[in-house]
């Protein structure tokens, strides 16, 4: 029965080809440093899943954002766990992505033929930091409010375009309901969509070129 089902699915989905091309690949001898990329991906998936759960109760308005998070933490079943994981995975993701970048740098894995993988990777690093920055405002507590005030001020110190960037980030001269709405939108739609897209490109490039080997004296 199972074999019949598998054969039926394989005919239509090409499971065997998928297995051959995605999983059954040869790789150079690796070590634990090679797991940082997949660890970043795992953390991204955790963030997507916990983040989706959080949007069920979170309200992006200055009147309700703080209270809705208090509600998640105290009233919703396992809300504290979901938010706790989202909070800590965010920190860990920045750390893991950064160390992943360092590993690639030290082993010079960014060189031919993997230059584009590096370029996309830098985009992923920046997007991860952007996720951290936009996500930090959402609880709408004192720390978030004032850190974002300063953070957007720094972005506003760019010569000539600064004023425009500041107003675009804040949706006006000051932090307001608009800022929260904007950061929320960026945090749950714009940046994750870009991130997912770039993750896809990054993974395609890795499968295409294979994992790089650790350099030896001849390299």
């Amino acid at each position, binding site marked *: 029965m199972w074999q019949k089902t598998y054969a039926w699915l394989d005919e239509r989905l090409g499971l065997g080809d998928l297995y051959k091309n995605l999983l059954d690949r040869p790789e150079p001898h690796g070590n634990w440093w090679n797991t940082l990329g997949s660890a970043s991906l795992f953390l991204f998936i955790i963030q997507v899943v916990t983040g989706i759960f959080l949007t069920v109760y979170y309200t992006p308005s200055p009147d309700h954002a703080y209270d809705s998070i208090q509600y998640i933490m105290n009233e919703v079943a396992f809300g504290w766990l979901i938010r706790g994981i989202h909070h800590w995975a965010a920190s860990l993701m920045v750390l893991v992505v950064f160390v992943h970048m360092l590993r690639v*740098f030290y082993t010079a894995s*960014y060189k031919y033929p993997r230059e584009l993988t590096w370029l996309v990777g830098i985009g992923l690093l920046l997007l991860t930091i952007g996720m951290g920055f936009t996500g*930090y405002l959402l609880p709408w507590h004192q720390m978030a409010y004032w850190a974002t005030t300063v*953070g957007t001020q720094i972005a506003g110190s760019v010569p000539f375009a600064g004023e425009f960037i500041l107003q675009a980030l804040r949706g006006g001269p000051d932090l307001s309901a608009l800022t929260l709405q904007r950061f929320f939108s960026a945090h749950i739609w714009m940046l994750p969509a870009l991130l997912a897209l770039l993750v896809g490109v990054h993974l395609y490039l890795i499968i295409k070129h294979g994992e790089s080997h650790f350099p030896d004296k001849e390299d």
Partner: protein
Amino acid sequence: MNEETKKQINQKYERKLEHGERFWPDSIFKDVIVALGIFLVLILLATFVGVHDAPKADPSDTSYVPRPEWYFLFLFKFLALYGQIPVVGKIEWLATVLIPGIFMGLLTLLPFIDGSPRRYYAKRTMPIGIMSIMVLGIVLLTFLADVPTVLADGSSLLGTLQTIAGIVIPVIAYALFIFYAYKTKENAVRLTIITALISGVLMIVFTGAALALHQPPAVETAEVPHTLADQIVAGQELYSLYCVECHGDDGATTVIEGVQGLEGLEIMAINGKDVLYTLNDASLVEVINYGRPDAGMNPFGKAYNPEGLTRSQMDYIVTFMRYIWDDRFEAPEIKPLFPELAEGEVPSYEVHIQPIVKRYCISCHRPGKDSNEYYMDTYANILNSGENAGKNVIAGDMNSYLLQTIQGTPILDASGAEIIGVMPPNGSLKPDVVDALVRWIMAGMPETEAEADALSAPTPAP
């Protein structure tokens, strides 16, 4: 890069693949182990460390010291140190835009800047040296985040130490790495390693010195009430401090008594349906925040009142009003103000009297209020402060002013004029509260629980 080199690289990779492993299951196995480890760590962190909490955002509280997420701390520190440099330090965008922009640009374009096919570590001493020192600098600046650059007394010693550790030594090291890479071809590896080690150690030493010299101020951590019961209690305490003076401890006062400037003013009882059914939470917060100038109510929001309340605090007061006075809301179980007293038990200041005083008295009896300078904010002040010091509380004496006034007897002077009215001015204390105060003073005002226990009559055997 010419075709020949590319072919060599690809051939080398093919050879490595032949002696390598399989993606499935070898690599996936390690990936899964790491993922499981991460998941476990996350659950432990979420369960046992939790999420640091802070009060609700309050745009009027500009005294709040902003603190970004930890991974931005090094940038903040860098900006602060950069501001110390004379002349260029004043051009902010150099540090906020240009320098980070150059670094990110170099990092992004790395494969195109470093186009050589050499990959072995010893052949790339300059980039590896620069990156190592930079990462060390980032880590150290993160640790230094809480150390100020200029002290209150104007001394900039800490700032100098930090600038040396975080900017001067790294810049010298980068310059040396570049110099070695281009000028000392054969010794480059050795020199780079030595320089990196020396500058790394120096950076750590200067950072350690700055950390050792810095005495962190005692951190005031604002406890954020989490459960509904805690929020109600927090609201009640704030209400006792800010509102009882005019509205009374049960909110039922209709004529203000004993408040300078508002004496005799008629107000609305705030514990009934007229207020609680017609105003929602947001409107109640607004009334507290902006006040009702026509009706005599001052604004209590921090933006309008220097001693005022933050957003969170106003929310707690409204929560308290809802759950205690509004009959549509059912309050969760709340701990009583003080533990019930047994027959013959003597109350103590720390367990019984302090919460009573905090709820019923301190709204007026504190510095800045018109209360004959009788302050009840500390144990010592309750015993001895104000114009009638020595008469307010007398051990074992039912004629103590405090005991007379709370039991409905005003204090009169020789000519019969009232010098202290009945306390509290509006309403009266509950019998168990009066009883606790009487027992406390009659037993000689013990401060700690142990002292009170020593004075208590032995519990009669059942």
